[in-house]
């Protein structure tokens, strides 16, 4: 049975095409791009809701579940700038983390494929070998991360190194949380990218909690971007719940990278609206913080913006939601019907064969 194809076309506007006219110096996406971004934010939210609140609780997912609820604007706003659709000498490469579901979707992973991954099926991206967000596929230009957060930073730098070696203007996107930034590998990777002037866009999702550790116990500076001058690279902090701010900041960093000016450290401040994982009730987070950030929900904000511009109306939004739910129904059904791997497949793929 063929994999269902996503009903919405992959984000256009990235194949060396202009990403939209600049307005007063700030990058602004065109209408099509705005709708694409809205779609992916809503799809991500809905898919992760299904995973965390439905399937996990029904016992249909084994192992851990880590969602990026409330943080969708970061992945989506950033991923709009990832160059796709060409070949190895054209396309960018991306190293997402566990809260970046939208990146996977926008790089061409269907919800069905993601669900097959979570359910450990043979036809998922890792064929059942690894779980939850630990997926990748170089054909989709996705580098799979590992649980040892921070390890991906030097790896991302390495991918960018090849672009410099080949003399292209490709870029590497690296996503991580504020907690991962405390790791030694993070430091080594960023310093390396800085010295070598590598085209990496380092994107920090500062959702203010690393499991139970608040950001005030993770670092003694207020913003991670304050680390940037210590590496001699530009750094910026912006509102992670405003997808257009994200879009703008990442766009400028990408332009810088493609011009050969080296890496940028971007920090997007948001809030982790769930526990660390599905089993964590986040009792250590003051309830008032959840309430405060609920009011800043990135999807509602963006919808309000687009409604104001008359790019969509209420009916269009409901229609979008209905199509998404239908797509997800199909995806869940497909994934649940997928076979598990054969036990002996455990032995396959350790080495090149």
């Amino acid at each position: 049975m063929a994999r269902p194809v996503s009903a919405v076309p992959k984000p256009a506007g990235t194949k060396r095409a202009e990403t939209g006219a600049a307005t007063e110096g700030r990058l602004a996406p065109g209408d099509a791009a705005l709708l694409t971004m809205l779609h992916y934010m809503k799809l991500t939210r809905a898919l992760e809701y299904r995973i965390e609140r439905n399937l996990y609780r029904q016992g249909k997912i084994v192992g851990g579940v880590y969602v990026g609820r409330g943080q969708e604007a970061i992945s989506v706003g950033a991923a709009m700038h990832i160059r796709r659709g060409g070949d190895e000498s054209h396309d960018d490469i991306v190293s997402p983390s566990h809260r970046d579901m939208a990146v996977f979707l926008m790089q061409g992973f269907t919800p069905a494929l993601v669900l097959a991954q979570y359910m450990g099926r043979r036809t998922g991206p890792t064929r059942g070998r690894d779980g939850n967000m630990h997926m990748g596929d170089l054909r989709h230009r996705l580098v799979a991360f590992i649980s040892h957060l921070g390890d991906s930073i030097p790896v991302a730098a390495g991918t960018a190194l090849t672009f410099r070696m080949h003399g292209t203007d490709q870029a590497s996107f690296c996503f991580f949380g504020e907690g991962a930034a405390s790791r030694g590998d993070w430091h080594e990777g960023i310093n390396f990218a800085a010295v070598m002037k590598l085209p990496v866009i380092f994107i920090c999702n500062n959702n203010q909690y690393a499991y139970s550790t608040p950001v005030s116990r993770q670092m003694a500076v207020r913003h991670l971007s304050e680390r940037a001058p210590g590496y001699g690279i530009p750094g910026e902090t912006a509102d992670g719940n405003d997808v257009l701010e994200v879009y703008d900041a990442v766009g400028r960093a990408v332009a810088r990278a493609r011009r050969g000016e080296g890496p940028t450290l971007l920090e997007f401040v948001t809030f982790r609206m769930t526990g660390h994982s599905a089993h964590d009730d986040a009792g250590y987070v003051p309830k008032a913080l959840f309430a405060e950030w609920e009011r800043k929900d990135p999807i509602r904000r963006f919808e309000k913006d687009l409604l104001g511009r008359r790019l969509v109306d209420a009916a269009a939004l409901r229609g979008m939601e209905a199509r998404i739910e239908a797509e997800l129904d199909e995806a869940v059904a497909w994934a649940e019907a997928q076979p598990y791997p054969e036990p002996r497949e455990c032995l396959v793929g350790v080495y090149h064969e």
Partner: protein
Amino acid sequence: MKNPGLPRERLLAMHRFLRLTRMVEEKLSVLYRQGQILGGLYSSLGQEAISVGTACALEPTDLLAPMIRNIGSLLVRGVTPRDLFLQFLGRYDAPTHGKDGTLHFGNVPRRALIGPISHLGTLIPVMAGAALAARMRGQDRVALTYIGDGGSSTGDFHEGLNLAAVLKIPLILVVENNGYAYSTPTERQFRVESLAARGPAYGCASESVDGTDILTVHAATRRALERGRRGEGPTLLECRAFRMRGHAEHDDMRYVPPGLLEAWKDRDPIKRFEAFLAEEGHATPAAMAAVADELAAPLEEAAREAQESPYPPPEETLKGVYREPGYEEPWWPAP
């Protein structure tokens, strides 16, 4: 050079340690060329003011962890030239019984000294933990250690300094920016002008000073100490100097542009300090030369004793992996 209010005897003591450091290292170099030293030899030529200046600023109970170019710090702490010669010659009476070379040794109870390992950066979290423990025990002790411009790129540098900053640990991290990490110049090591830029990056204090000016180094260390004792957390203290010899004795430094070495010769820390002492009337050139003469004979004697000192017996190899009699605490008595 400006005296930050140190009395004459203190200044003269610092001068003596500078001279001693250089002479010990010269003697080691001689021994190396005679093929007597086992393993590598790393010089601090041109950087002696950093070791001596920082170590002299500490109280004897403050914790100190030297790195490979900090023989001067050890001498200030009371490690003798004989101890050092024994170490480099791999003899039984050395502070490690011959188990490790160079200055890879310590003695916490008697010298508040923690010894390094070769993996750069590892001392930073270790010293953060040591100072943290001192605080837990109600002791007012600051920890000081060193790292090079190269070592600042390591993950442990980051994790250790961040931990110290977050927990406001009184750690002084002396960054010896001497221009080169082996053959790697600083332009290939990081992209900032001064590593002091990393202080604000971690939310801690930082300074950058002339590492060839011993009084500036001393004064900056005192400021960092006071900061630490006031509970304001770590200080990153960059001391700028130049590595006047190769990475190690075997390295001929061919990758260093010749003009650079010449330019730094004028900034020799001992030359500068002696000029200051003479100008300020603390000592005459003759008196200062006499210091070197005074130190010479005992130094030779120490070297000779070390060379005649026995090697460890082969069975020593198996000893001290775990706690056992003789290895319950640093065996080295450190008089």
